[in-house]
C-alpha cells in the first residue's frame, strides 16, 4: 500500500544521507522524496512516498523515528491530506500538434513557460492522478524531457501535519 510520510528533521548536513541510507540499507522502497527548509531555518521538512504492507510501514516509521536528527514523523495515510507535485515537461511539437498541446496544457491548468521552434515547455501542478493523466495525453505527441519535484503533502484542516 502507498503511504505518504511527512517528517521534520534537523536542517544539518548529512540528514538526507542518513534517511536515504536507512531506506536502502533496510530494503525499504522510496517512490519519491522531497526536502526543503521550513520557516524555522533549523528545521527541514521531508515528504516521502513509500510502499509496503503494514508491518513494513510500521518499521519504516519506527526506524525513521530512531534517527537522532529526525524530530517528528507523521504517516498521512490515515488522515485527510492534500498532495501536489510539480512537473516540467518539454513536448515536441509540429505545426499540426502545437494547438493540441496548448489545449491540453490549458485543460490541466498548465502554463507554457518556454517556447522553442519545435517545443513547448509546460509547468503543471497536481496530485498523482492529474499528473499521470496529462502525461498520458502528452506522451503520444512526443515528450523530449520530463522533470518532477516529487510529492509534497500536508494534512487538511486547521492543524499542521506535525501537530497530528
Amino acid at each position: 500500500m502507498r503511504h505518504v510520510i511527512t517528517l521534520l528533521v534537523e536542517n544539518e548536513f548529512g540528514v538526507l544521507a542518513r534517511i536515504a541510507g536507512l531506506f536502502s540499507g533496510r530494503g525499504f522502497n522510496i517512490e519519491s522524496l522531497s526536502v526543503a527548509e521550513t520557516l524555522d531555518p533549523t528545521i527541514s521538512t521531508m515528504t516521502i512516498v513509500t510502499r509496503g504492507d503494514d508491518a513494513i510501514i510500521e518499521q519504516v516509521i519506527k526506524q525513521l523515528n530512531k534517527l537522532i536528527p529526525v524530530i517528528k514523523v507523521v504517516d498521512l495515510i490515515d488522515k485527510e491530506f492534500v498532495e501536489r507535485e510539480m512537473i516540467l515537461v518539454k513536448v515536441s511539437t509540429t505545426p499540426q500538434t502545437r494547438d493540441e498541446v496548448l489545449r491540453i496544457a490549458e485543460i490541466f491548468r498548465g502554463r507554457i513557460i518556454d517556447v522553442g521552434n519545435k517545443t513547448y515547455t509546460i509547468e503543471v501542478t497536481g496530485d498523482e492522478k492529474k499528473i499521470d493523466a496529462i502525461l498520458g495525453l502528452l506522451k503520444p505527441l512526443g515528450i523530449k524531457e520530463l522533470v518532477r519535484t516529487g510529492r509534497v503533502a500536508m494534512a487538511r484542516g486547521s492543524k499542521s501535519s506535525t501537530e497530528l
Partner: protein
Amino acid sequence: MKKTGSQIIIECLKKEGVEVIFNYPGGAVLPLFDELAHAPFQKILVRHEQAAVHAADGYARASGKVGVVLVTSGPGATNTVTGIATAYMDSIPVVVLTGQIPTYLIGNDAFQEADIVGITRPCTKHNYLVKDIKELSRIIKEAFYIARSGRPGPVLVDLPKDILVESTEFKYPDKVTIRGYRPVYEGHPGQIQRAVTLILKSKRPVLYVGGGVISSNASKELIQLVEMLGIPVTMTLMGLGAFPGNHPLSLGMLGMHGTYRANMAVMESDLLIALGARFDDRVTGKIESFAPQAKIIHIDIDPTSISKNVKVDLPIVGDCKRVLGKIITLLEKEDTHAYKEGLQKWRRQIEGWKAIYDLNYRQEGMIKPQFVIEKIFELTRGEVIISTEVGQNQMWTAQYFPFMKPRTLLTSGGLGTMGYGFPAAIGAQIAFPNRLVVNISGDGSFQMNSQELATAVQYRLPVKVAILNNGCLGMVRQWQEFFYEKRYVCSSLEGVSPDFVKLAEAYGAVGLRATQPEEVVSTLKKAFSIREPVVIDFVIDPCENVYPMVPAGEPLNQMRLI
C-alpha cells in the same frame, strides 16, 4: 579562558569521567595526543585499531561504563569499522574519536582521508563531523549521552586537525537537549497492568531474556520476579548471566544451539515474556513456527525491536529495570503463591524434557572442549570474566559455562566477529585489574587479533587465552559436514597455524600446552597462578561438534541431538 580544540576534548573527557583511552596515534590526531601527555587517563596503545574498539567494548560490557577509543584519520578510522559494527549490533556504549584531515582539505582525497562519517553511518547509533570548534564541547557531551542512554550504542566523532589546534572559549554544557532523541524509560502503565493480567492467566509461561536486561542492570528485578512467580527462564547468548545459570529455573540458552528443554518450552508455552531481546533469527529458527501457541509480551527500550520479526500481542516500550520493578509492585497485590503453585505441572513437564535430553559429552580419548570449559568453571567457581571468539568455542562456552552474574560474558552476539574476544578480554582486564579474565578462543579466531599479545605484555595484563585448538575453523567445518556433504573447503588449519606456545613466548607472554585430558586441570591451575598474560594451547578432539543444533530456517523443535 580560551582553550584549543585538543584541550577542550580533554576537559570534556574528564567531565564525562573517562578513565582509559584505547588508542593508536597518527598524523591527523597528533595535536590531541600531545595534549594527552598531561591528561589523567590511562592510555592503552593497541596494535590494531579494530582491537582498540573491541577492547573499549569489552571494557564497557564488563564495567557498564562507556568505552573510549582514539585513532587517526583514514586507515586508522576505517580499521575501527568492524569494532564499531560489533558494538552496534550488541548495543554497547562506545565513543570513538577519529582524527580527520583539516576541514579545508575535506573532499580533496588528501593523504589519509576517509569519509568515516559516511562509512559508519549505518553502524553507529549516531555520528558527528565537527566543522566548527564552537560546537565541539556540545558534540562530545551529546556523544556520551547518546552512547549510554536509551538503547546504548557506539557514537563516532570525527575531529578535523584544524579544529584540534584552533582556540575558543570553553564552556561545558550542563545538559543535553536533542529534540529528536527522547528515549522512553517508563513503560505505559496500562500496558504494564495488562501484562500482569496476562501473566497471571498463563499456564505455561517462559521468560525469554536478552542483553537488554544486562544493559539496564535489571538482574535483581528479574530474579525477584522469578522467585515470586516460579516462571522458567531461558536466555539468549547476549542474556547469559542476567539470571544465574545454575538456578533450578534456568533453562539455559535457547535457539540454534539452545538446550532441548529451552526450545521445547518455548514451542509449548502459552505466554512468552520477552525482556530486552529482539527475536534474532538464531533464536527463533523458522519464524512462522516460533512459539506457535504463545501470546507474546515484549518489553524493550527500542520500539524498532518490537514487532520487527515476530508479531507481538502486548508491547511495552521502556527500560527493563523500571518496567520489571512496576510489574513486581503490581504483583505484590496479587495471590502469586497460588499462581506459582499452579505452574508446578509446567515445571515438571520441562524437567521431563531435561530427562529426555540434556547437554552431554563424554571425556574419552583426546581432550574435549566441553571438558576444558567445565574445568574453567569448576576451578574459578564462576568468579571470572569470560570472553569468547565466534564459532564452536563460543557456543560450547554458552552451553557449558553456567554464567552466574551479569557482565561476566563478553561475546560478539549480533555481528559474530571472530577476533573479538581477546582484545575484549584486555579491555575487561583494564576495567578490573584484580579479577581473573579468560578468553576462550579457537585456533582460527585467535589469529585474527593475536597481535594484541604485545598490548597485553606491554601493560602487564594477566589475561588468559584458552585456545580450543582443533586445527580447523570448527563451526565452518561442522556446517560443511552437515550441509555440504563433508566437502571441507578452506576450513582446515591443520599443520599451518603457528606454534601458539612459541608465539606467546615471542611476544614475552607465557605459553602452555595441554594435549591429554589429565593435563587440563593442572595446566589451568598453573595458568591462573601466573600474574602475566598466558596463552594455553589445548589440543582438542577435531571431530567434536556443537549439539543440539537446529538447522538454519527450521523450527526450534527440529533439533539434531547427536
